[in-house]
């Protein structure tokens, strides 16, 4: 359950403020290296001829590639709690496919920061939302990501 009494500090002014955090042009080379790293062999991502006959008519990127894009750091709520932090959870919703050659623009905001106290002690969660759009301003994906801060 939420722990309203837990002691932690963060920058409340940043809540809900959307920032542009970067853009990335997704090339065939980038897709191929990503596929090699995660063991993707789907011809929709790697084979021009097979992709041309597929539902998208050309090579697309694996949906999960968006989660692997490195952008400028997300907006920082400057949580001051504990001595370590790590990913707690994420959810992606996918809309338009990312085609080779697309440029993806990413914006992000901090949705909320809250504490929970359980058997392992108090943890502070920061929840971020990111929107991914292509160069035609079509929505490509939406992500909600949570990071946990705790005392190791």
């Amino acid at each position, binding site marked *: 359950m939420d722990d309203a009494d837990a002691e932690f500090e963060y920058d409340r002014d940043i809540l809900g403020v959307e920032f542009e955090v*970067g*853009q*990335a*042009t*997704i*090339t065939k*080379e*980038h897709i191929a*290296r*990503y596929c*090699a*790293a*995660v*063991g*993707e*062999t*789907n*011809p*929709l991502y790697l084979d021009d001829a097979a992709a041309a006959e*597929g*539902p998208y008519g050309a090579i697309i990127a*694996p*949906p*999960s*590639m968006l*989660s*692997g*894009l*490195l*952008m*400028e*750091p997300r907006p920082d709520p400057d949580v001051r709690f504990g*001595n*370590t932090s*790590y*990913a*707690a*959870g*994420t*959810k*992606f*919703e*996918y809309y338009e496919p990312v085609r080779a050659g697309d440029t*993806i623009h990413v914006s992000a905001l901090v949705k909320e920061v809250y504490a929970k106290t359980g058997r392992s002690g108090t943890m502070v969660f920061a929840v971020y939302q990111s929107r991914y759009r292509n160069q035609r301003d079509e929505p490509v994906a939406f992500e909600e990501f949570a990071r946990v801060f*705790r005392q*190791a």
Partner: protein
Amino acid sequence: MDQRYFEDVEPGDEIETPWDATPEAVAEFMATRRLASGLPEIEDGPERVRPGFERPIVPGSMSLAVLSRLVTDWMGSRGRLRSISASYRRPVYRDDQLRALALVTDTEKQAEGGGLVKLDVYIENERGERPLQGVAVVELPLRP
């Protein structure tokens, strides 16, 4: 790649694939992250042991990518991954013997063709722990 059709799927169907999260694969995953955006890598190197962890861990986004691969390989080229979520319950340690698994939990035919399939997805290590658990929703075509 075989096409999966909505009529062929039932709750209880299971799929799985082994995953070898080698140092080389983790390093390559992290390297690919900076290719498109042209930014320098800013996260930990693959050899660093972060506070609170026993060994180097696998990035959460890489574990999510492997779960996505499991589902997209299974659904075929005309399927669509609508959404995927994961809770990171424990660290995924590099060099653990890992499997990515999925279990069909629900199916729902859509009014305008095709059907939605919900799957529980998870990563399991050799100790029987499931450090990542989540849900994927895919859209499958109807059989012609």
